[in-house]
């Protein structure tokens, strides 16, 4: 099997990998101990592995690692340490009780963050649609929607001030 040299900026740091050409971005990340990116299905069905690729939320299990050469990836850990909106959303998840088992949480926060960054409003139905690619079996989604809604409200009130 062929190998690929892949240069990716991960969480603000330039990283260089040599990996098997066929592996997914999820495999590359997890093989290199980015354990904050969870693996729930490896088929693109569940969303637990969602990360930002060039500012767009993608399911890293169905993204080819080699295709990320020269691109930029942000995972939940990197976002939490550097992105004020991400931290605000994390805080809302904690305070609203949106975290139960926590396995979907990193991917869910990335999906919610993308919604907010694209200018998503405090609209519960729109939020529900935006995160419908990310499964959660614990919460029934109410408190997850609460957390994203609350953060959207805060963003809206900051903008109007």
């Amino acid at each position: 099997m062929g190998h690929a040299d892949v240069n990716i900026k991960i969480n603000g740091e330039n990283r260089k990998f040599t990996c098997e050409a066929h592996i997914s971005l999820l495999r590359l990340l997890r093989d290199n101990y980015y354990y904050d990116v969870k693996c729930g299905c490896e088929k693109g069905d569940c969303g637990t592995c969602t990360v930002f690729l060039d500012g767009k939320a993608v399911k890293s299990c169905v993204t080819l690692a080699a295709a990320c050469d020269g691109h930029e990836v942000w995972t939940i850990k990197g976002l939490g340490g550097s992105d004020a909106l991400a931290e605000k959303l994390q805080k809302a998840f904690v305070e609203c009780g949106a975290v139960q088992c926590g396995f979907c949480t990193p991917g869910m926060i990335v999906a919610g963050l993308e919604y907010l960054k694209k200018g998503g409003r405090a609209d519960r139905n729109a939020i529900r649609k935006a995160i419908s690619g990310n499964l959660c079996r614990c919460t029934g989604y109410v408190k997850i929607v609460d957390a994203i809604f609350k953060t959207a409200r805060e963003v809206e009130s900051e903008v109007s001030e």
Partner: protein
Amino acid sequence: MRTELNLIGKPVSRHDAWAKAKGDQLFSDDWSMPGMLFGKVLRSKYPAAVLKRIDTKKAEELPGVKAVLTAKDVPVNEDVTKFGQMRDVGGGFEGLYRVLASGRIRSKSEAIALVAAESPETAEEALKLIEVDYEVLEGVFDPREALKEGAYSVTGDGCGNVIMRTKICDGNIEEAFKKCDVIVENDYETTPNEHAYLETEGGMGWIDENGVITLRVGTQVLEHYRTIAKVLGLPHNKVRNIGVPVGGGFGGKEDITVEMYIALLVQKTGRPVKMVWSREESIESHSKRHPEYLHYKTGATKDGKILAQEVSIVMDGGSYTYLTPWVQMYSTFAAPGCYKIPNVSVKSVSAFTNNTFNSANRGFGAPQVNFASERQMDEIAARLNLDPVELRRRNVLHDGDRLPSGHVPRGHIALKELLDKVNKELNRSSKPDRLPDGRKVGRALALGHMVYGRLNFLHDSSRVSIRLELDGSVTLRAGVPDLGGGQASVLAQIVAEELGLEIEDVHPYIMDTHLTPLCGTTTATRQLYMSGNAALKAAVQMKEKILEKASALSGCPVNMLALKNRKVYSVIEPETISIPFVDVIKHLSNDGEVLENIAQFNAPFTEVPDLNDIKGELNPDITYTCHGVELAVDEQTGKIELLRVIAAADAGRVINRNSCEGQLEGGCVYHAWWPTMEDLKQENGITMANSFSTYLIPTAADVPDIESILIESGGGLGPYGAKGIGEPADNSIAPAVVNAIRDAIGVGFNKMTVTPEKILNAVLSFKNKE
């Protein structure tokens, strides 16, 4: 002296929420060790077969393969199933636990061989090199067929396929039916739904320098270490599980999963071993909810008084016994429903088949009979031309009522309040017949009752330890598997409440069989009840010691002292008599007092009942629920949309409001689409829907905001009067959905899965009849 509660009932943030939100929480798969190997399992190719020959030579010769194990390599390959109980119950409650296949194969999920190799790819390759010869047998896949004379024998022992028969009877059913004005008889079928936790089964193991097989595996039952030790031929104290926060369990991680295979491969190779199941392996291999085939015959007077109910239940146990007899007790107990019925007969039988084994799934046998009994209520109401809510109101159980087994529930029965509250909320506006887009609208509700706490004859107990640190913080140790329900942080909350501290002052260290007191299983909705009471007891005992010391220091009598805001203070003169908590601890330490306290809580104990005539109390208490649903049915496509969902329960006492609501909402959504969407498509022992693109679970777009109603009657047996909520939360939603479909289109469905095709056909044939 008891003062106003500071933390109990508040929506406090859990101790582990930040770690999970930041991505710091390491789950089963998020761990690695130098020199680790990767384990894989070879599963049977057929659901029913005889294993004639296994040749592992080629697999062993593959470079990078370090071990290939088959049944002959397992020190003790067969044992009986245990689920963490401290007492041997024997009888029909313990079935065969076979680690690796030998002789007759009973299901396609059966493990035939284990491989450990230097990489997952090599291990996968080695599985393909294992040569297995099978004699394929016909098998049996329907428990009703399996119970027939001359049916294929799943176990091969020729003694029939019955796992257990049991019954509960009360009154005189034949005489009572003669007095009834209407008799409604229906057959119901429920499907084997999948837990679908987002984290698949996985973990690591290694052998420590003193020969202890050490595991890092997420499980609902830490106590499986005992069975692992037995299988490995080791003393119990030479196997340790440092548990991991579980990425969802719902009963699916109650049976032994990866931990046994990892332990065997570690013992064989001496190397660290990691094993993680793929999503497909997870869905195909772990247990499912028991499918049940139920017959209900119910008789009522014309004024809507139910006089008699006869129920027969056939349960599919699948390939091995596991928890089937236990689940059967729950189904049999809950089958009569939420009503006071003077004449009852419930007979149940479970059978082996060649399907994947069925075992625990959130609700544990209650949701199946709840679906049937609550569907039955709406059919009776229709026959009597009575409002289904009114029929329920006339028959619902009240405090002091005796159940058919003779058991009078200990806690408060809030069914009537729940029914009225949900009914009022559901019908706050009058129901339109159709939406503006033409879809038909249906509304309905259903009641539920489900026990919390394990079967009393298991003699259940839990232990929690707290240690006062010299800076006034507290370390709490508890062997409580946290599945995401907040099972650990609620213990810290209780201890903080009693000691007048903030929740962040109490650090829970959990789930380590060598270091934490054993709390028992995170199953049976028991942790708040059992370990919550143990934590409360440990804290109250410690509080007494603290108050005595503070009394000696201040001269204020003990009964005039209270703990709050990290201080001991006089309730009479809080301004003048107030000692920092930490100062009291220092004095206790100086005086050589023990700063650590472990307390045990025991549930009620009974003996195993006579299965031919179950009498008495099976479980400590019951949690009551009610769900209301408004939905729309598209008559062109058969598709349904949930418009409103109301979930109500008597939580007894809410401890952590976020966690309690989270259980109510999550449990409700867990089963909201069970009757109409979730379908494993099992065909002749093969699970066709083995991924999340074929086995569909609800997304955020499939459900509306759940409207929660929490009653706090104080009538529970847990700390502060709390009841358990985790499993009861998924009861009664499924029949509410199907009853609402009936309300919308006039056709009642009794057999799952109620697909859009079935709804469409029903709409068409109903219209043709009109």
